[in-house]
């Protein structure tokens, strides 16, 4: 079996599904059902988190390959199996999902419309997301990757804002169009290798001219998911219209699925095409960082501003991945974690204002630091984390990416680094408008500071922002082995004589 002695990853993946079934059987008055549904969902997600921590403790960072592997025959005649596993790259993404889901569930406490359905959709989302990060079979990965759309479509469409239907349909169609092209790439690679085991696919050479086409297919799919400029246009709509817990999951976890896909498939499986596409990806990344930062600067709504800041940060992650250096990729991974936590914190801060009945228009806020000092301190911490201030999580990721980029191309590193300056600009503009200007209308003066539930959401996030920033080694040492192996394999694939040696061996 594996070192846990039981199918830990499957348990983490499908425990929320058990929760869904449990919620479906709740009976009684509406109010009681709603209350029970909230608590049942919270406890389920906490149980998953506990399993996740156990996974972390038991995880052996010295191994570059997959651990806790599971393998069951599924479609044996065509070599598709149910394969699960975790390595240093996916470990923290699984943990991030497990960590943010309970927080998002607390953030959805204020939802009163069809509570049970919402919680069911949310737990389903957790199943799909964890399953996607843990799958080591391409078909299984694809299934989870695309099945994420089902609960998310409902979450945006049923519980979203005014233009929710437009946003939900746009989100669904954009993502579906992208992932269907990946399906074709999948089918080709399956046909080429005779199996969909991701480890086997990694070692099956693909002719360089085909790689280009496969890379385009992957770019269509993961680029949309990661909201790489110019495939990001669904994002402001979806982020803006989704209910707050949905936005948290979208921004913090689902956007990582695209970057994860690049790291898992596009870079290691298509080394030549990835290398050839690096200038394109750098350009897209730099454009995302600079152009989208400027767009963020022009936003007048707090939620949309944070949404655009997310696109800009994804640009940094993309740059890091395509440097093919240990620093760049580790920086991208670190930035994925850091961004997930920071963006969740920022959106929850926006939600705090919504819960007090305020609008999120920047012109209608101001002066909150006077009445809500704790809130102001935490919002400031997350904003600083987003800017990448030393001592916060954002700094480590960005500096690693910039160092990695510097090894490859000076201009990329310079322009990518410019994102930090622009990031400081729009975040400070937001802070001033929300916290420091004068009260724009009298009701702001009577707002109360954070409540216990809000502390419960924000304090763990704040602690993690600091932990990641002050002692990043607890996280990076897990990345070291798989990232080093990946970079080595990439260089080997690009150098002809070593490639030849691999063939003759």
């Amino acid at each position, binding site marked *: 079996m594996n070192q846990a002695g039981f199918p830990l990853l499957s348990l983490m993946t499908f425990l929320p599904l058990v929760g869904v079934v449990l919620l479906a059987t709740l009976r009684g008055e509406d109010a009681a059902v709603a209350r029970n549904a909230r608590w049942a969902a919270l406890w389920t997600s906490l149980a998953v988190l506990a399993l996740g921590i156990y996974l972390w403790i038991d995880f052996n960072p010295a191994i570059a390959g997959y651990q806790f592997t599971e393998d069951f*025959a*599924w*479609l*044996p*005649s*065509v070599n598709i199996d149910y394969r699960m596993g975790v390595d240093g790259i996916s470990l923290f993404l699984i943990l991030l999902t497990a960590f943010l889901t309970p927080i998002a569930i607390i953030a959805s406490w204020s939802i009163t419309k*069809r509570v049970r*359905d919402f919680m069911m959709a949310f737990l389903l989302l957790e199943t799909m997301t964890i399953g996607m990060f843990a799958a080591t079979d391409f*078909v299984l990965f*694809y*299934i*989870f990757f*695309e*099945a994420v*759309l*089902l609960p998310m*479509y*409902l979450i945006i*469409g*049923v519980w979203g804002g005014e233009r*929710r*239907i437009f946003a*939900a*349909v746009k989100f*669904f*169609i954009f993502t*579906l*169009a992208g992932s*269907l*092209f990946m*399906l*074709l790439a999948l*089918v*080709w690679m*399956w*046909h080429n290798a005779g199996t969909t085991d991701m480890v086997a696919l990694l070692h099956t050479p693909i002719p360089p001219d085909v790689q280009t086409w496969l890379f385009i297919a992957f770019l269509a799919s993961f680029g949309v998911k990661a909201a790489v400029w110019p495939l990001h246009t669904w994002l402001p709509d979806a982020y803006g219209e989704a209910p707050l817990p949905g936005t948290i999951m979208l921004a913090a976890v689902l956007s990582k699925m695209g970057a994860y896909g690049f790291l898992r498939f596009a870079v290691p499986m298509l080394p030549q095409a990835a290398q050839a596409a690096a200038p394109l990806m750098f350009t897209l990344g730099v454009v995302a960082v600079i152009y989208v930062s400027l767009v963020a600067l022009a936003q007048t709504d707090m939620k949309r501003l944070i949404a655009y800041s997310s696109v800009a940060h994804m640009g940094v992650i993309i740059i890091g991945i395509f440097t093919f250096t240990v620093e760049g990729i580790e920086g991208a991974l670190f930035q994925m974690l850091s961004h997930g936590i920071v963006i969740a914190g920022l959106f929850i801060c926006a939600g705090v204002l919504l819960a007090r009945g305020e609008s999120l228009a920047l012109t209608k806020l101001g002066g909150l630091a006077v009445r809500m000092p704790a809130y102001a301190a935490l919002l400031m911490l997350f904003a600083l984390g987003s800017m990448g201030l030393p001592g916060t999580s954002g700094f480590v990721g960005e500096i690693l990416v910039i160092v990695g980029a510097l090894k490859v191309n000076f201009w990329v590193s310079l322009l990518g680094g410019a994102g930090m300056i622009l990031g400081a600009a729009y975040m400070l503009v937001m802070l001033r408008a929300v916290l420091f200007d004068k009260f724009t209308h009298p009701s702001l003066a009577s707002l109360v500071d954070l409540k216990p539930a809000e502390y419960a959401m924000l304090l763990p996030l704040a602690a993690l922002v600091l932990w990641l920033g002050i002692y990043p080694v607890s996280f990076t040492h897990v990345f070291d082995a798989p990232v080093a192996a990946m970079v080595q394999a990439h260089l080997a694939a690009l150098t002809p004589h070593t490639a030849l040696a691999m063939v003759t061996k």
Partner: protein
Amino acid sequence: MILLQAILPALVLGLGGMALLTIAVLIKRDTSAPVTYAVLLLFVVAAILTCYQPDGFIFGGLLKISGFSRFADLLVYLGAAAALLLSLDYNRQQKIARFEFPILVAFSVLGMIVMISAADLMTLYVGFELQSLALYICAATDRDNLRSTEAGLKYFVLGALASGLLIYGISLVYGFSGTTNFASLAGLLSAGAGYGTIVGIVFVLVGLAFKISAAPFHMWTPDVYEGAPTPVTALFGTAPKVAAMALLLSVMMGPFGHLLAQWQLLVQILAAVSMTLGALAAIGQKNIKRLMAYSSIGHMGYALMGLAAGTEAGVQATLLYLAIYLVMSFGTFACIIAMRRQGQAVETIADLAGLSTQSPAYALALAVLMWSMAGIPPLSGFFGKLYVFNAAVTAGLLPLAVIGVLTSVVGAFYYLRIIKVMYFDAGTPNFDKAAPSVRFVMLIGAAATALFALLPGPLAAAAQAAARALVG
């Protein structure tokens, strides 16, 4: 003995149907419900007997029993049985319950299993006509309703045209090759074929394409789907589609298998046009039955993609696709039949608004089916698409696969619209409580669709065995 055992399922249906007809005519009371149950029983018996059929040729090479025919036969029984179950309550409520209907269904099923096991162009045609004639009457079974009679007449006129094309093609093939036997034809055509035979094959292909409603021979489908009583539409959407597609597979891969190079492009065009038309034309539909008609055109396009590959994997993909589509299809029609307000059947998509708040289970079932039709994993429809795309890419038909992908995205849009109406729009559908038989079919369809991913192996293996029996 072997002979008797091999034709036993057909005998059970034929003799059983005639016996029921005789008895029911003599009884003066309304016997539609007991006759329906009796026909369902006939299907069950025939299906069990089918499982024990020995392989081989019967009647001097007129019929061929194999793993392929057994697989398709079982699908036909399943589809027809589901349609009959759906008709029980619907026909009573619409006051069109007549005992002839289930018996006609039994005879059409008999025609279908004859055409599936046909090993000669003549038996093919006889089976084809038997099922068609029975279905023409079924379409017009609501005889006092203008739309139903119009559907029946339209189906008859255009169906007769298709039969004419088919028999004309058969006569050309016979005239230029001198035989109607599949095995002899395969031997003769392995050395290539003259223009006369090729023209004949094209006519045969067109005649069969009409039956599976592949574009551009689909014109009858939307009107007939909309006009016919819904259980009849459910029947049209399931069993005859499977039978005609199985026939197409066995004809094209059997006697004409060596001419793959000649007909492959034609089938590709049929598939591409069907997928495109099915996706685009459905967008503007307001009536859910019309929408299902266009959706079925699109699905037949995907199923044809497997045939276009012309390989064993392609046949397997088409068979698997058909099996999955059949289940989704009768599940969806069960949901449509359950759309009934104060005794009146309603059919527009807008009537579904707000369904998810009033009857969550019903809405969830329909949502699962719609997502599956759109091919979203982990639902069964995804696996169908995975297999046909795999067959097409492996056979080098990448452009066709790309068209399939693009039309899937467009198609997803209108399936999503139904989910949108049910979940996002406000409204009070106030549907009547559906009859137990309808809820049963709905549950089977939705549950099989949703849970298929748990155990996809056996069905895929069965489809593979069937494909091997046909191609290998």
